[in-house]
Each structure stands twice: as C-alpha cells, then as structure tokens.
C-alpha cells in the first residue's frame, strides 16, 4: 500500500515532467510558426519550377541533358529525412517504417545508397548494413539554403558520374500542425509532366535553345527541391513535437488529478481510522 509520502512524491515528479513537456511544447510552437511561414513561402516557387522542368522534360529528347536521362536503375539512392531529436510522436517512426518498406523491394542491400539527414534516421540505418554515402546530423538547428545546395551538389555529382541512376526522397510533408504525410518522391531523373492543355504544346519553343536552358535550370531545380524538402520536414517535425507535447502535458494533468484523488482518499481513510480509535478508546474508559 502506497503511503501518503510516496504519492506526494509521485505527484511532484509528474508535475516536473509536465513542466518540461509544457516548455518543449512552447518552444516547438514558436519554431513551428517560423518554419510554417518559410515552407509556405518557398512552396510556390519550388512547385512552379518543378512543373516547368516537367514540361520541358516532356518536350525534349532525354539524352539531351544528363539530368533528364533515364538510365537502367542499377544504383538507386534514397535520401531519407528524419529529425535530430525524438519527443515528436510518431514522426520518426513513420518515416523509418515507410523507408524500410521501400528498401525491402530490393534484393541486394548493397545496390542501394543512402543519404541520411537527421540523427534518428542515421542511427537506425547505419546499424542495418546499408551503404551510406552521406550523413547530415545536427542540421536543422540553423537551416541555411547553402546546406541544401551542398546536398544537391553531392547528388548531382554522383548522378553525373553515373554512380547513381535514380534518386528518391523520403520525407514528411507538412499538412498542418497536427498532420504530416510521409512522401516518397523521385528527384532524378526528372519525370516528364504534360501540361493540362497539351494541344498547344506541339510547338513548345526554347530560346535560346533547350540545352542552355536546361543547363541553368536543372541544377537550380535540384537545389530548390532539396531546400523545399528540408523545410517541409522541419515544419512537420515542429508540428509533430508540438502536438505530442500537448498530449503529454494533458496526460500529466490527468495523472496528477488521479494521484491527488488517491492521496485524498488515503488521507481520509487515515483520519477515519484515527477517529475510530479515539472513540473506541473513550468508550472503553466509560465502562
């Protein structure tokens, strides 16, 4: 049977935990606001650039530019974006589960290259005998465009040297503070997209010519897409953490209420017992 002091201690323990979860929630909320703003501002440009690339890819010969070329996928690369920290609900688990499912399609583990962004994913996949060609941890603290460019550069170099034939991104897409969606997306080669009113597309003109345009546009597109994905993931992480910590705080409240109730009951019992003892004592004296 728990003593009063035990329960008192547990209550104060839960209260301390609650203070931490509440603080984490507040921090996540502030970061979320900023992260949400950046992703919402970055999306229009990235989506439109991606669409234009798709249109161009549907109009030119694919061997015209290395970044469009469809090669036999001998070496496949997955870029997996997770968080550096836990305490964000099922954010990391969702990504890892999805990535595991994707990777299990391949017979030969050694034919896959992984680029791991975020400590959680790194810790998981480095232990599992995959070939890791890039890892980036403690990355989101101060997210800069140049970091996206670094990763994009690595990807493009390996692709151009034909060390990689196909590149996928796995990341959490930001829907709302309480909702993220795991997305698997092909980054390279660029998938052709035919515009909605394609009847007019017969004579799609390039000026000065397709190669010049692709040369400037392709690297920029990869940079921007990687950047977008980093922002999506960061905003999702903050959203997930805020929601998870909100639940944890509420849960602590419930726990404290229950414990308090138990405490009161035991205290009441004790008092009742004491009164009984006193009464029976005085009854005994009367006789």
């Amino acid at each position: 049977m728990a003593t009063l002091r035990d329960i008192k201690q547990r209550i104060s323990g839960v209260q301390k935990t609650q203070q931490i979860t509440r603080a984490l929630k507040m921090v996540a909320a502030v970061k979320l606001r900023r992260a949400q703003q950046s992703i919402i501002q970055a999306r229009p440009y990235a989506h439109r650039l991606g669409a234009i690339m798709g249109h161009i890819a549907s109009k030119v010969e694919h061997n015209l530019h290395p970044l469009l070329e469809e090669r036999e996928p001998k070496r496949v690369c997955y870029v997996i974006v997770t968080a550096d920290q836990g305490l964000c609900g099922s954010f990391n688990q969702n990504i890892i589960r999805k990535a595991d499912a994707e990777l299990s399609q391949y017979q030969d583990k050694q034919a896959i290259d992984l680029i791991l962004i975020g400590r959680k994913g790194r810790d998981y996949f480095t232990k599992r005998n995959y070939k890791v060609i890039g890892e980036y941890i403690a990355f989101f603290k101060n997210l800069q465009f140049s970091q996206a460019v670094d990763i994009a550069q690595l990807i493009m170099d390996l692709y151009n040297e034909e060390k990689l034939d196909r590149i996928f991104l796995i990341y959490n897409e930001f829907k709302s503070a309480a909702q993220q969606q795991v997305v698997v997306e092909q980054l390279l080669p660029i998938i052709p997209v035919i515009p909605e009113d394609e009847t007019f597309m017969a004579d799609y003109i390039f000026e000065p010519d397709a190669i010049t345009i692709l040369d400037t546009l392709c690297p920029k597109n990869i940079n921007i897409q990687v950047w977008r994905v980093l922002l999506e993931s960061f905003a999702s992480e903050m959203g997930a953490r805020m929601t998870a910590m909100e639940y944890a705080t509420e849960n602590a409240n419930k726990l404290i209420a229950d414990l308090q109730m138990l405490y009161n009951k035991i205290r009441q019992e004790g008092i009742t017992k004491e009164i009984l003892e006193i009464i029976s004592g005085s009854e005994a004296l009367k006789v």
Partner: protein
Amino acid sequence: MEDKFFKLEIVTPLKIIYQDQVKHIRLPGVDGYFGIMAGHAPFVTSLAIGEIKVDLANDTKYFATSRGIVEVLPHTTTILVETAEDASQIDIERAIYAKERAHRRMTEHVPGTDIDRAKDAWFRAVNRLKIARKLKEPESK
C-alpha cells in the same frame, strides 16, 4: 477588338510577388525586350536583369527584376525570378548605397573579391534605380 487577358504570375523564392489577369507584358529577355499577349505560342526562355512592364485593363505596373525564367502557356504565363520589386516600392537610398558598395568592390581590387558578383550587384542596383526614378518622374510624352 476586345482585349484578351491571360493569367500572369511573378514568383520569387521568397513569395508570390504578383498574380493577376493581364493584357500585355514586356519582359527583359537575354537578347533584348520582348512582349507577350494572350494566345502566344508556348515557350520557355531565360530573363536578364531589367524591367517587367505589365499592362492591365487601365493601369500599368513596373517591376525591377533580376535573372530568371519565364514559361508561356496558352492561358498562363509564369515568371520565376530571383528577385522582383514593385517599382513604387523600391527604396532609392538603399539602391544608391548598393550601387556604391558594388562599385567599391569592383574598383578596389581587394584579393578574394568576386568581381563577377560585384558586377552583377552593380547592374541590379543600376536597374532598380532606373526603374524607380522613371516612376517618380513620369516620361513626358
């Protein structure tokens, strides 16, 4: 003839600068300015530093812009540029300052200076100034 309109979007990495139904636009192509009206053949081209002129039903807008790309589709034209500033919102003092700073970089020859970048900055500043001043003192016709 009735005016035909098409949808124009000017988008930078930071935000959507402008979005509307417009009548005619004039863009700074790499080989000089060119115009686009509704029903233009679909095409893609690069843009240089310069001025975007947008004709609406009864208004005209100017934007200072730097390098980018434009895609023209039958009903929509999308302009993706590094920067685009509404001419009426250009800060002239800042532009002058940027121009002077770029000029110093170009002339001082400090080792490690990226001359091409300085030149680019100078062109952008001059472009911003030109467009902002044109708006302040309307062309006398």
